[in-house]
């Protein structure tokens, strides 16, 4: 990937799709604006590809630890009141949400 990356264009349709994945409603103006901004940002950050040659391993954690585990011992839980303390809506000890579109996952 040492060749110059092709210029990236993020279209309004792309932003619409991404906003759907990220579940953020956006106005048509916001979408157009973001499309332009993201194109220039992605254009800038795409240069990571210049040095990301296949021989370089990826690093996901700054400090390499392994096997950080917890003993299977019960600890504190929140009370039902604490669980629901921030709920926008609740009923019968549970969170209430508006109708779910579509199917069970």
């Amino acid at each position, binding site marked *: 990937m040492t060749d110059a990356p092709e210029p990236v264009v993020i279209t309004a349709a792309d932003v619409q799709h991404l906003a759907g*994945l990220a579940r953020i409603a956006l106005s048509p103006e916001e979408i157009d604006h973001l499309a332009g901004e993201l194109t220039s940002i992605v254009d800038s950050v795409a240069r990571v590809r210049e040095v990301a040659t296949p021989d370089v391993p990826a690093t996901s954690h700054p400090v390499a630890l*392994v096997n950080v585990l917890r003993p*299977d011992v019960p600890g504190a*839980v929140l009370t039902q009141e604490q669980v629901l303390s921030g709920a926008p809506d609740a*009923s019968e000890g*549970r*969170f209430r949400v508006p109708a779910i579109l579509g199917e069970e996952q």
Partner: protein
Amino acid sequence: MADGTALSSDALLDYDEALAKYEPVLGFEVHVELSTRTKMFSAAPNPAAADSGTVEPNTMVAPVDMGLPGSLPVVNAQAVRYSISLGLALGCSIAETCRFARKNYFYPDLGKNYQISQYDEPIAFDGSVEVELEDGTTWTVPIERAHMEEDAGKLTHVGGTTGRIQGADSSLVDYNRAGVPLVEIVTKPIVGAGAAAPQLAKAYVATIRDIVRSLGISEARMERGNLRCDANVSLRPRGQERFGTRTETKNVNSLRSVERAVRYEIQRQAAILDAGGTIIQETRHWHEDTGTTSAGRPKSDADDYRYFPEPDLLPIQPSAELIAELRAALPETPTQFRRRLQADYGFSESEFRDIINANVLVELEETVAAGAAPAQARKWWLGEILRIANARGVEAGTLVSPLHVSELIALVENGDLTDRLARQVLEGVIAGEGSPEDVVRARGLAVVSDDTALTAAIDEALAAQPDVLQRIRDGKVQAAGAVIGAVMKAMRGQADAARVRELVLERAAR
């Protein structure tokens, strides 16, 4: 089987015709809830643990289980051990290093709106499981991988008429189940089962259930969702190399349903292909009540889960010592287990096959382990319990615990219950009235062993039938039968007939 006879608009092709034209290819994703004491990533108690009863909603929740800001996951060491054991039991290789990844999607039962799972580096991969069908033939099911992940919360749909998601006004969310440790076992495509595909499906899931039970890592109660199966089915015309388009049927939560759902999908897909149609790659939902599947969400580019390595967790690198330790502690395989039990119990091949086909081997073994004689255990599980289970369309193992069956058998052996009374006690136990002892006490069903009451009843019966008394006195002992019958009736069956006979002869002789 009532394959889609009612309430479904799906056209179905005759099963034999479907199999003559098409070859089914199967695949399974089985989710196993581990019975660790705490959750996968938090120290909240695990509702899938053995001793967990019914609890109030949202009372087994730690911050990370409901995705509170600032909360962090920490991996349960026991869940990792259980997962390795399961991987080994599935004949898998255990990864030298594996890690967690985030699967990103929005759904209200998912507190963080991502599921911590494993993606490109599962803890176990490349295994196989030997599965025995009802006719005794064995199949090797290839395992692609087994990976660790967390369960989601539970939704209750309110408003509307069906209690289903469609038409509901709103839904209620309980996060008690969120974060329960899961292992997802994914098979490679299973080819060549032909007409036996539905049976193989059932046998495969039963085998997984038996394995996790023998490992002691899950309660494995399908009716409680401890074990859940998604069945992938595709058909290809006979002779074609390429696999057909598959559907994924979810929510198949009993062994019987697994078999029915696969059979239904084969017939449904065959009808579509036969009519020149194409199969849509989609999720389908199994409906236990109608025995049909219905279309769910089509697979689309909206399914972009944006997996990436979970930055809050570190890689897991099981040591060779740990793997060796867990391997050494593995129980027998289900096949070995069967062979051993058959020999130990002295059952014939056909007697034993009945047990396996009724899916009560584990129950039977546990009943024997609790003290019952194998023949008695077999008699009850294949007799009265299986009869009730079949009548209700459920698995026998879901009705009653082996411990209670063993207690029931002991009561009969001790002469406290007659067979007839014991059947009544069994009914009570199944109805949730407690242990056999509890039911005996509550319903007052014990055999009357107090001779005073019996003697009084006998004297009364003899007095009511002077001719019979005379015949007995004349040496016609078989005449006593009439009196015994009357006494048993008077005692409402709560007497030992042999003892009654003894006493009748004794009283008549006076």
